[in-house]
């Protein structure tokens, strides 16, 4: 008899994914689900959904969920957490959602040190609406609203969110990971789990950025998109832990 050694985590419903083939949103979705199950906190979780491709997670995660307006997830999560301090409240937002329309909400929630966890999926494009320029689109990268490539003279430079958040006093954990390789995925999983554990430990605001792809709107095969991430995205957005105050506070 074959032994089953790998299966979908229980808080991911047994459905096929609606994300495009090769899209790393679905991997991130799974890593978060696995982390929740490994921490054994599924019933305590309240997830706040953003507006973007990952709103689709309302179909896949088996969790209590609140869908927010575009960019407002950290404000909604603030309201949820303040009323249910016993809950583990997290939001998973895209880069248009978090770094453009919702920049104020995420920075101010971080600055207040809300006891919430924010996962930030950076695919350097507006996936859901068809590949327009995002605040994170790389210099020279083409999009449907910068067809000749992003020009910094008129559109500025890609925003490095971790580097912004880390300047604030309150956040306890700020880190960036890439989901490009098995080794990096393992690191990311650890970071995801830690960002949730921090909330269980009552520590404060945690922010984890995940570099992902959007093969559909980048106009690439999944394999090409990973190569693009490694050659471009990961060079501009360094993967590291920027802030980790958890050790200090444990003392």
């Amino acid at each position, binding site marked *: 008899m074959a032994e089953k050694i790998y299966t979908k985590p229980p808080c991911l419903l047994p459905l096929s994914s609606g994300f495009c083939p090769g899209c790393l949103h679905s991997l991130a979705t799974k890593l978060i689900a696995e982390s929740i199950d490994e921490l054994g906190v*599924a019933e305590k979780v309240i997830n706040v959904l953003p507006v973007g491709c990952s709103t689709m997670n309302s179909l896949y995660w088996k969790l*209590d969920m609140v869908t927010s307006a575009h960019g407002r997830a950290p*404000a909604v999560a*603030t*309201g949820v957490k303040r009323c249910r301090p016993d809950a583990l409240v997290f939001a998973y937002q895209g880069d248009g959602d978090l770094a453009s329309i919702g920049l104020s*909400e995420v920075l101010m929630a971080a600055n207040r040190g809300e006891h919430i966890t924010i996962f930030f999926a950076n695919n350097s494009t507006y996936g859901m609406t068809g590949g327009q320029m995002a605040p994170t689109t790389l210099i020279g990268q083409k999009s449907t609203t910068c067809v000749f490539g992003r020009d910094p003279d008129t559109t500025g430079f890609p925003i490095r969110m971790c580097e912004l958040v880390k300047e604030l006093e309150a956040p306890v954990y700020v880190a960036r990971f890439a989901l490009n390789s098995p080794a990096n995925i393992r690191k990311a999983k650890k970071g995801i789990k830690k960002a949730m554990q921090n909330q269980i430990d009552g520590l404060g605001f945690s922010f984890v950025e995940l570099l992902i792809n959007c093969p559909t709107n980048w106009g690439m095969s999944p394999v090409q998109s990973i190569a693009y991430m490694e050659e471009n995205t990961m060079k501009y957005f360094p993967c590291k832990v920027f802030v980790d105050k958890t050790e200090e506070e444990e003392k």
Partner: protein
Amino acid sequence: MAKLFMKGNEAVGEAAVRGGIRFFAGYPITPQSELPEYLSWRLPEVCGTFIQAESEVAAINMVYGAAATGARAMTGSSSPGISLKSEGISYLSAAELPAVIINVQRGGPGLGSIQPAQQDYLQATKAPGHGGFRMMVFAPNSIQEAVDLVYEAPEYADRDRSPVLVLMDGCLGTMMDEVELPPFKELPETICKPWTVGYDGTTRSGHLITPIYPEAGLEGKNKLAVARTKRWEENDVQVEEFMLDDAEWVIVAYGIASRVAKQAILNLRNKGVKVGMIRPITLFPFPKKSIAELDYSQVKGLIDIEMSIPALMREDIELQVLGRAPVYEYGRSGGVLLDDDSTEAAIWKIIEEASSNG
């Protein structure tokens, strides 16, 4: 019960606390800032939460999150801030979340003026956000009535799982008057309700609170909202009718304007002019019947008096009058207040001109 002497905005804050509001997020704006100021220390006293949000946009979305857990949640602002909240109000309505919203109106449009006005009637009753939804709108004309309506507002919000608006103005918010405060409502032990998110200690809710639906589902929701509006119109209209029995002239006024109009009516009655008043307390549902069922063989005209130019309620009045009598308007606007004497004179002038033309 003992009476207290309180500022309108603070009295409304206390009424909210007594009515069970335990979460408030807001942003400073004149003339409502005493509301967040009061609640910033008062809510923590009753184990509630106050958050000074970074913007009105954030505030209404915090309320959205709080409401999703079942907490009784409220936000307050004044006109420009309410415009910023309109996205969130639409989402509250779509996601069927109860919340209380206070608008202490000031002059508009734009940054307008910080003085009292009634220029948000259309926004409040017709389109508080995109998507063609409605909410109940209460319009007190005294601090006592504001207290009573804000105290009851969470009940309507919870009953309908819908946002509710209390439309005040800078006069009511910043003046002081004596009030009798209602008793503290008894609150259930848990904020969890059959539809809320969050583990209740025994079973996981598994709920999704959402403002987005597949199109057929959304059309169904739209139809249910229409049925609810009908129920509001049948059961929830609140209106004051004043000296209508023999009235040949009917003033229609709400909120602070009705206080001024009432004094003008009393003065005119002393001079033998047969004037009365219809005062909507609920602006939505609008007291259609009171206007539609006037005796038009007796009524010579209606006068809409508002602290707004143009008078914004006029179209709603005309829809009930249906040409059976002329409708006139008088108002001051932009933060200029109505006063008794000029209002009396304006009513008299309208009556005189109509009589000489007729």
